[in-house]
């Protein structure tokens, strides 16, 4: 049941009960007062009648009449006849009950019994007067009253209905509008009419809708991003898989020479490695968390010696001179991740470089930051690609990438690692002149 109906029902019920109690008490009070007065009148009347009867009897005695019980009874009979016309019934009784008052509510009578004075104390007079008319009046009054308050209740309910409906109108509007927004999934907002609770609720509701929309946008965006990542990942996996599948089939079916078998096996091995690297990088990109970082003080010389060792073979193949200038002896970071970062950057530089060229790495302090600068004399990046190179799977130069066969995850991973260190990574590049990457890390 809606609140407004509950409200109306409760109010009307409360009204009826209250009126009932109040009216009941009032009518009772009024009735008992009325009866008290009736009893008093009746008593006076009775006293008067008794006195008259006694005086009558004394008169008779004075005139030499017989003064006994029978005389008294006959007098009473006379009075009885007379008072019947006045709706008073008189009688005598042998019970000597003094001043007893009965109220016979069933028949609507007041009965008073009183003993005569001496010498007739053995006889009592029973006085009976009807107050039926009062009873009837009271009944009429009661039924009238019931009608009145039924009428009042109905009027009250209607008035309440109107008032409450009016009061609830903004709430109804709110519900209606919310329905619309839910069903039509629209971008509408709830109009705010008043500054009352409903207005406040509407404002809050609008704020909630805004937040919801914002979150929806974010979720949509991230799901698009995820889908895109997945599509790219699938694409990147396809070539190595084709190769592995093909070469293994070749090995199984073909009557191949030992030499060809070795070629096939080498390819299978290389492609499996490629898949593994793709998986590792993807996994790192997806799962690297700030909480798992172990930031320590790193010795620049040690770090760059390690990098030199890792890249030794490739540098030698391309006859590239890796120059390292260390101006900051220490910097801070997670050792493993920093190694991944620097290897990736130097790898990229080697990939971009020509045979017989130079790669320069600098580490120095600036303000409260440690800057690592990696620059090469390679082919550079087109300015139109610069803004995208940190995107996963983005390959600026399709020719080169095809030969070096990276998946396009390296720089995304670098960016992620730097971001986890609360640092920043920037790139400067000129086509055919070279590329410089700046990594800036906090120097606690």
């Amino acid at each position, binding site marked *: 049941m809606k609140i407004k109906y509950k409200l109306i029902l409760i109010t009307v019920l409360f009204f009826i009960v209250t009126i009932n109690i109040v009216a009941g008490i009032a009518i009772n009070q009024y009735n008992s007062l009325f009866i008290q007065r009736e009893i008093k009148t009746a008593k006076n009347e009775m006293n008067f009648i008794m006195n008259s009867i006694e005086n009558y009897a004394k008169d008779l005695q004075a005139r030499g009449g017989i003064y006994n019980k029978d005389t008294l009874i006959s007098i009473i009979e006379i009075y009885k006849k007379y008072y019947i016309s006045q709706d008073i019934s008189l009688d005598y009784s042998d019970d000597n009950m003094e001043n007893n008052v009965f109220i016979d509510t069933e028949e609507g009578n007041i009965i008073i019994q009183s003993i005569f004075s001496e010498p007739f104390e053995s006889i009592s007079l029973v006085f009976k007067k009807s107050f039926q008319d009062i009873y009837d009046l009271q009944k009429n009054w009661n039924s009238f009253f019931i009608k009145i308050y039924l009428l009042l209740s109905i009027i009250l309910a209607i008035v309440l209905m109107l008032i409450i409906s009016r009061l609830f109108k903004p709430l109804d509007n709110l519900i209606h509008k919310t329905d619309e927004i839910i069903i039509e999934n629209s971008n509408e907002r709830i109009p705010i009419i008043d500054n009352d609770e409903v207005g406040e609720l509407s404002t809050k509701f609008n704020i909630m809708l805004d937040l919801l929309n914002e979150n929806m946008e974010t979720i949509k965006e991230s799901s698009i991003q995820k889908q895109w990542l997945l599509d790219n990942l699938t*694409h990147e996996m*396809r*070539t*190595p*898989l*084709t*190769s592995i*599948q*093909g*070469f293994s*089939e*070749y090995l*199984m*079916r*073909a*009557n*191949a*020479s030992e030499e*060809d078998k070795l*070629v*096939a096996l080498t*390819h299978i091995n*290389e*492609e499996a490695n490629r898949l593994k690297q793709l998986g590792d990088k993807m996994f790192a990109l997806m799962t690297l968390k700030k909480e798992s970082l172990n930031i320590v003080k790193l010795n620049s010389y040690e770090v760059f010696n390690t990098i030199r060792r890792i890249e030794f073979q490739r540098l030698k193949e391309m006859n590239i001179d890796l120059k390292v200038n260390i101006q900051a002896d220490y910097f801070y970071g997670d050792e493993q991740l920093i190694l991944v970062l620097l290897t990736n950057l130097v790898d990229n530089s080697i990939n971009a470089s020509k045979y017989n060229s130079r790669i320069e790495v600098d580490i120095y302090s600036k303000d409260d930051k440690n800057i690592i600068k990696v620059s090469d004399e390679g082919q550079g990046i087109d300015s139109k690609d610069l803004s995208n190179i940190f995107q996963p799977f983005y390959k600026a130069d*399709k*020719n*080169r990438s*095809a*030969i070096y*066969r990276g998946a396009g995850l390296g720089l995304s991973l670098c960016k992620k690692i730097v971001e986890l260190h609360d640092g920043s990574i920037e790139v400067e590049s000129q086509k055919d002149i070279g590329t410089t990457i700046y990594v800036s890390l906090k120097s606690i």
Partner: protein
Amino acid sequence: MAKILIVEDDKSINDLIAMNLSIIGYECEKAFDGNAAAEMIKNSRYDLILLDIMLPGISGIDLLKQNTCENTKVILITAKGGLNDKLEAFNLGAFDYIVKPFEMLELIARVKVALKNFDVNENIIIKDVEIRLREHKVLKSGQEVDLTILEYNLLETLVINRNIALSREKLLEVVWGYDFEGDTRTVDVHIMKLRKKLGFDDVIKTVYKMGYRLEVSQ
């Protein structure tokens, strides 16, 4: 023997295709980018070009557009099976296409279809046996060998896919057709007869778990 140019930038895929086609007797050359491919096509004649669409330098589609491959059948290799790419490829005159990743037998089948006219003119000589594909005739020491149709078809399939093991199921499917309900023993029986009639005991080899392979020195 037909000469095929493989234009594919991924070295492993290029090697894979080349090795598969070499083993069944084709002469293969490789190009890893569009420019090199254009140069090679200009300088020598190929019977078939396998062309990747996404290439460094000149793309596969551009090579087709520039009519570089005119007079030569082209099978396009694509990574995506997008309809538009395929339609464009056909409009530009490609003979067929194959989508990565592909299976070896599928590749060979498509190449075979493209080179059908060329291959048919070939007479294959194995030891003292000469197989005339055009005439459906087999000669042993100059004498015609009496083969049933099934035996000939089986021999032809093995010869076309020489040096590659074919499973009994595959042979059933190709030689006997999809509807055939016999079991793989049928294949064994026919192989035995072929070996006997042609003296091919050491030519048609049983490859453990894989099936049968007709081996010819390359």
